[in-house]
């Protein structure tokens, strides 16, 4: 029974990673950049939600909407001010700018909300479900995270395959110049991608802090890195890949903490990542792109 409980916990944390990884993967697939500030957008989202419920006293559903709106605007602003001017320059330049943005967000959060941890109240009010005489406990947070992440994945898959904007995104990620020649507004497509990625980050932030209730300016950075590895793990650029990578990463993390060692869980998680990349260099569900000479 214990093993199933760990599996459930792993899937739950993995589902949060998956939502963050979806944001990473979309931005990487379309703008071809590693957005290191993504983890900090998560943190901003969580803070907004925290403020709306605790200071304004509004219901948690409103706080989630507020977080999504603020993060979407934030994502578009960051993209327009910091990344857009650097389009077409080597990837490293944008990477460093993203790091600068990440520092900026973390320190701005520290100025506004101070560095002392805040106790985030979960947005879920449902009582935990006990199964098998209490041997198996499924909390409301677990159910919510899993449902939301599945919904997000299905929604995104539908969006990218059926809608005009989604198709434009796929075209831009395939070949930016050709897409432009076909009359696709590349800049607007990339902005939309950032908006979606940041909105997902806000949702992930609220879910993350509902599961792990301490909220600090650095809350987003480690889950950000982990979700990034999850995206690479599943094959960066692939939507089902990000989902699979996130869930697997969560399960591996929980199991290694439970059965092997708590202290070495980081080392184990990253070792698995390295092994996967060596065996399948494009990730689990990634496309192996042939190099043209």
């Amino acid at each position, binding site marked *: 029974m214990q093993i199933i409980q760990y599996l459930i916990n792993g899937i739950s944390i993995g589902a949060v990673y998956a939502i963050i990884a979806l944001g990473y993967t979309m931005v990487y697939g379309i703008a071809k950049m590693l957005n290191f500030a993504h983890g900090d957008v998560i943190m901003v989202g969580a803070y907004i939600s925290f403020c709306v419920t605790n200071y304004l006293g509004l219901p948690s559903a409103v706080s989630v909407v507020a977080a999504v709106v603020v993060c979407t605007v934030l994502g578009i602003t960051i993209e327009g001010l910091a990344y857009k001017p*650097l389009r077409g320059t080597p990837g490293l330049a944008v990477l460093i700018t993203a790091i600068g943005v990440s520092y900026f967000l973390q320190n701005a959060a520290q100025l506004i909300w101070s560095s002392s941890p805040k106790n985030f109240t979960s947005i879920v009010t449902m009582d935990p479900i006990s199964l098998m005489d209490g041997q198996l406990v499924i909390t409301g947070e677990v159910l919510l995270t899993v449902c939301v992440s599945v919904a997000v994945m299905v929604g995104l898959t539908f969006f990218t395959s059926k809608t005009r904007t989604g198709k434009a995104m796929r075209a831009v990620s395939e070949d930016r110049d050709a897409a432009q020649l076909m009359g696709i507004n590349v800049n607007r497509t990339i902005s939309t991608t950032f908006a979606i990625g940041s909105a997902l980050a806000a949702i992930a932030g609220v879910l993350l802090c509902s599961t792990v209730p301490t909220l600090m300016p650095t809350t987003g950075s480690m889950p950000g890195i982990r979700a990034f590895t999850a995206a690479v793990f599943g094959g960066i650029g692939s939507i089902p890949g990000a989902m699979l990578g996130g869930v697997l990463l969560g399960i591996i993390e929980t199991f290694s903490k439970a059965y092997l060692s708590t202290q070495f869980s980081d080392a184990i998680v990253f070792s698995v990542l390295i092994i996967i990349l060596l065996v399948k260099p494009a990730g689990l569900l990634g496309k192996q792109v042939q190099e043209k000479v």
Partner: protein
Amino acid sequence: MKTKMNTLLKNKNARTNALTYLVVIAAFLVTQYLYSADALSSSVKGYLIPICVYISLAVSLNLLVGICGELSLGHAGFMGIGAFSGIVIAALLKDTIPNDALRLLCAMFGGGILAGAVGFVIGVPVLRLRGDYLAIVTLAFGEILKNIIGNTYAGIDESGFHMAISTTKMPLETGGKYIINGPLGATGIQKIATFPMGFVLVLFTLFVVLNLINSKEGRAIKAVRDNRIAAESVGINVTAFRMKAFVVSAFLAGMAGALFGLNYSSVTASKFNFNTSINILVFVVLGGMGNILGSVISATLLYVLPEALRSLQDYRMILYAIVLIVVMLCTWSPKVKEYLSVIGDKLGGLRKKKEVGSHE
């Protein structure tokens, strides 16, 4: 005509290298003079050794990122290996080598060799990957190294030297002393790092890296960076050269790490995390990729900048972030560059026009 071009090119290379050495030596002499004249405040004195360490780290990472074109996000891991092995070596040799400077040198070389060896072991699988995947794997290795160092115990007791990598504290006989104490890090370090030794480290790093760049190997490495397939097709063994650069870079980072570790009375593994790797990368990119003197200058300035802004307290890191973004935009964005050059032209006026004319 061709030979003339070649000699000119060589001269230009030699000139840039000489300039790099000259700047470093001049900076050292000035600082040393101010130091001996007691014109430096104690906080400034405290920056000197870390600056040397970060210069070496930036130059060695530049070999990897700028010259090889391989993005590595795990440089701090090698620094950490060098730091902790250097600390252990210095503690073990305490009675054998009473001379501080000599012991420091041994610790630095020991740390460098160990980091280089780990670099080799990691390089075998990692260098099969390229681009962003290489970046993520080096990031993963950096975190793994940090994690392992954070669970390492080393100590001396009557029966000799003990070392263990485990989650539980390694027992020592009574009277034994821990050198590395797991998550608490290394404590009670004898601070033997000195500024002149930092200067020697910087010179050594420059010597190794500049010689490597301007050698046959260096040209091969650059050829691999600019066009891997073309380089491969003319018979350059790509993997061997990448490996060489990777190991040399790890070795130098290890040496710098040892000096860094022996500059503080206690060091924890969490110091050598992803953020430190990123900071070193920022030095390299802002200094100019492949530009060694640029790395030296930017490492110094960017290390001093947050310290100098300390009086602004909470606002200093925000300012640092803004400076970082603005500098990146000014140096890379085509639009901003164009705008700046228009201003430059207006200010430069006639002089610039004349220059352009003479070139034509």
